[in-house]
């Protein structure tokens, strides 16, 4: 006699599988070369259009070309923080170790993008505003974002027990979410030197010849994040599971591949 077993939701099944370190290592490893390849192709295309094909700006001249790295980096700095907080939330509620690892590995990538946004913004500010830095609401809140990322990284590294450390750092990541609306709306809430948004959900004030390279670069950076996050998370799993059988098999396979 057949019994009707309740069918599990495929998404729930996938999340369950993702929680298994050997499965996660094996499954995600297949995507890494493709993600890097798409990132490289889009970056070359975006930079070609942005640095060579796009015309100079009528007001800023050539200096506006900094936008093709500054704006995608600034967008990524905020997007990664939202994803890190989201993964931290899931990790805190359901205690999924791979989620903790992915949340914690998002922090250095987010910090790198924030650093790029601040540095390139500063270099863009000199020819445009006549100064490298002002304590403007947008710039200051973005600097606070860098400190939040550094705080998450520092807290995670400060404790010997990685799972306990991830929980503490996840809480900090969630608290830091409050800074994101401040960054986004800073140009509306305060009278800032930093310009308002040129691109919104309803349209763009940028000419298509300048907008397309920007969008291509923004998509390229998402592939960079994906490739880098997976690479880092796989390495963290290896480091945490040094004494487990599956890492021995992975190390053996890697040595065999290298020798062949």
């Amino acid at each position, binding site marked *: 006699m057949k019994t009707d077993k309740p069918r599990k939701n495929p998404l729930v099944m996938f999340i369950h599988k993702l929680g298994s370190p050997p499965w996660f290592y094996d499954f995600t490893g297949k995507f890494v070369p493709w993600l890097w390849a798409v990132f490289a192709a889009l970056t070359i295309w975006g930079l070609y259009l942005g640095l060579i094909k796009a015309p100079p700006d009528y007001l800023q*001249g*050539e*200096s506006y*070309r*900094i936008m093709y*790295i*500054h704006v995608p*980096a600034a967008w990524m700095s905020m997007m990664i923080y939202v994803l890190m907080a989201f993964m931290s939330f899931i990790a805190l509620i359901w205690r999924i170790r791979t989620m903790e690892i992915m949340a914690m590995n998002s922090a*250095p*990538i987010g910090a*790198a993008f924030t*650093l*790029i946004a601040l*540095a*390139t913004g500063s*270099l*863009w500010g*000199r*020819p445009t505003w006549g100064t490298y830095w002002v304590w403007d609401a947008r710039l200051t809140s973005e600097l606070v974002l860098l400190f939040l990322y550094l705080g998450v990284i520092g807290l995670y590294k400060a404790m010997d027990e990685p799972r306990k450390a991830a929980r503490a750092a996840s809480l900090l990541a969630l608290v830091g979410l409050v800074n994101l609306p401040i960054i986004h709306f800073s140009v509306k809430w305060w009278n800032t030197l930093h310009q308002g948004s040129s691109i919104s959900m309803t349209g763009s004030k940028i000419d298509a010849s300048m907008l397309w390279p920007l969008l291509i670069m923004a998509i390229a950076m998402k592939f*960079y994040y994906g*490739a*880098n996050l997976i*690479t*880092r998370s*796989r*390495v963290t799993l*290896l*480091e945490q599971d*040094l*004494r487990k059988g599956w*890492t*021995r098999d*992975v*190390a053996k396979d*890697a*040595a065999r591949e290298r020798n062949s």
Partner: protein
Amino acid sequence: MNHAPFIWGSYAIATVVLLWTAVAPLISKKAAFKNIRTLNQAKEQSRDTNS
């Protein structure tokens, strides 16, 4: 004002930071594999001496 140093400076900084962020986990991966191999060798040696 010549804008070239500011533009190239921005792209140079971004390249260095993105490259380092991409290469750092590969260095850690190499170290992790080395640690796994060392641990396994030690385990095999202790098994040989016990048997």
